[in-house]
């Protein structure tokens, strides 16, 4: 049953991502992406990572995507925003798809040669307790570093995003 679920979710994720990538309107793209993230979250759960699944929903779908939406709204990139009015047409897509397809085939063919092909994913469940233990014992230092990263990222974001740098006319410059 889990197997079927995996394939279904995988299909959903791929389709949703594909839609997201091709949408002309950023808002739609974000919504599709949220879908694919939900699917991925479920796959994570299937693979026995409940906590990661939860965070996938909370951080990615919840926080990051919402942030995206917020920015899009703020910049009024409503449908018909000139940046992407007519998004990339087939002419742009074709070469890129060929390139991507080539890379994908190479990857997949290479993977054929790997013994991992035979191995299957077992049913396995990592309890949040163990997870937390691992996170805050073995990887405590890493957590600290990440926290510092977040701090300085915040500082940077604040510095960059802060309104009204000195020489900027309200109309911007063109």
């Amino acid at each position, binding site marked *: 049953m889990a197997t079927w679920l995996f394939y279904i979710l995988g299909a959903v994720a791929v389709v949703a991502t594909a839609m997201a990538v091709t949408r002309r309107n950023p808002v739609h793209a974000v919504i599709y992406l949220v879908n694919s993230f939900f699917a991925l979250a479920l796959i994570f759960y299937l693979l026995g990572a409940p906590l990661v699944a939860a965070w996938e929903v909370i951080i990615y779908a919840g926080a990051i995507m919402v942030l995206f939406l917020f920015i899009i709204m703020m910049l009024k990139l409503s449908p018909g925003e000139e940046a992407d009015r007519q998004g990339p047409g087939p002419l742009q897509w074709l070469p890129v798809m060929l*390139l*991507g397809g*080539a*890379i994908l085939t*190479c*990857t997949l*063919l*290479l993977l054929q*040669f790997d013994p991992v092909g035979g191995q299957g994913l077992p049913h396995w469940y990592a309890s949040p307790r163990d997870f937390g233990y691992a996170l805050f014992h073995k990887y405590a230092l890493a957590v600290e570093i990440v926290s510092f990263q977040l701090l300085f990222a915040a500082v940077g974001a604040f510095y960059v995003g802060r309104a009204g740098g000195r020489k900027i006319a309200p109309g911007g410059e063109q």
Partner: protein
Amino acid sequence: MDSRLLFLLILLPLAGGVINACVGCRMPRRLVALLATTSILGSFIATLSCWSLAAGSGTQVKLFTWLASAGLQADIGLLFDPLAASMCLMVTGVASLIHIYAAGYMEHDENQARFFALLNLFVFAMLCIILADNLLLLFLGWEGVGFCSYGLIGFWYEKKENALAGRKAFIVTRVGDLFFTIALLWLFSLLGTVEIAEINLRAAELDPALITPLVLLLLGGACGKSAQLPLMTWLPDAMAGPTPVSALIHAATMVTAGVYLLCRMFPLVSLSPVGMAVIACVGAFTALYAASCALAQREIKRVLAYSTMSQIGYMFLAVGMGSVAAAVNHLLVHAFFKALLFMGAGTLIHLAGEENDIYQMGGLRKKNPLLFGLFLIGILCLAGAPFTGGFFSKDAILLAAFSRGDGLSACLWGIGVFTAGLTSFYSFRLLYLVFFGEYRGQETSPHLSPLLIWTLPPLALLGLFGGLLNLPYFYGGHEILSRFLGTPPSAEAPLATELGLLVLMSLVFAVGWLPAHLLYRNFQPEPETPWRRFLLQGWRFDLLYEQIILRPYRFVARFCWLAGDRALIDGVVEGIGRTMLHWGGYFRLLATGQISFYLQGFAWGLLLMLGWLLLKTAV
């Protein structure tokens, strides 16, 4: 006596030259002239006092080693043997007289120091040639005289032509020197020595096949210095120099160096019949060529120059005929009377107000009878008037040629005789045009320094009685010179031959004189015929060389520069640079500034890597 006294011979002139060169310009002119003259006189006296050393095979002295390296040993060393001694005596003697003459001739020139310095250095170099005991030192003198003549021909350098004439002389002679150098290299590589005596000694060891080319190379060198065919074009132009210079360098001494070289190396030279024949031919033809040119010249000094050339031709002929004594004898006598003629010419030119053109002279006999007398003696010697020095010496040469008996010598003898006729003709042409008839130049009354006259008589006497030096037994002489030189006495020709030649030569002299007398006794300008112009321009050899040598040379020079260096080599090098910069431009274009293009770079890179890895794992 101490044989090292010999070095006084060369050191005195050297000292005089160096002193004059360094501080001459700070000394009073008279002192300069005095110093120069005394230094030469000194070496003249030294020669006389060292005379005894020359006896037999002479003496050899060494001052210090100049160049010594593996196998090579070239000393500053002298070989004072009879040949050298007699040459020395002549050179120093004539040189002293000419120095004295020059003191008068140049007294108003502000560059006396330079003049006398060069003149002394010249004598030094000339003596080096004469006395050198090895070919390298001889070569040093050889080039030295070349340089001095260069400097003296171009002495009045403000006139471009003079300087150019000097350069021409230097380079043309240097072409000859090239052959001499090669001969030197070759001899060294064959015999492992540059000692003249030793080379002559061991010449017989050499492979006969090699001797002829060697001799020809030496001949080439000699031709250059002695202005023989085909390297003779420089001598007439060399007359641009001051007259004493012409007298000393281009009449008496330097130009005869070639003859001297051949005599010096005679033991080697004589080993190659072919070589001898070639030498004789060169001599004979030059004699003829020069005499013919002399017929048409208008500048007094050029006439004399061509006559010099032709007389030297005789000497070559003599060497070719194997009679060194005759050659040397003629060399000496010729030196005397030719110096006399040149100095006389110099005086005449003064007299005629610095006028060179004999058409502008005439009637000078009345102006200065003494000078006329002296000049006449010179002319007679040159023309080979019976019983003058010139007569005997020339006679000896022709006799040698005649008595050889083979066909070639016979022809050459014929040429010689014919040339003798021409000689007496142009000599008297000169004499008549200058001294007889009415004076045609503008009136001038220059003050003649007595030195310009009183240095001539000794030379006149020497020229007149120079014949006695080597008077054949036939005339009751004892061939002093040839015995002194230790050369075999001239062929004992039967009485009839001797007499016949005597008569013949006298006739030839007369035959030359008569037309000149008729034509030029009273002056009328000669018609401008193409022939005359042809002769006047020395058979147009200059134009020929200009066309076949100089012009191609200039072209090659420019070609190598523009096509070779500029276009080809630099072109290639700079081309590489430019190409790289060009490609650099393309690589710059990659940085389009478009983020998505840069990302494509990522993707392509990844694709290539994966593709390669796939290939590797799959295969």
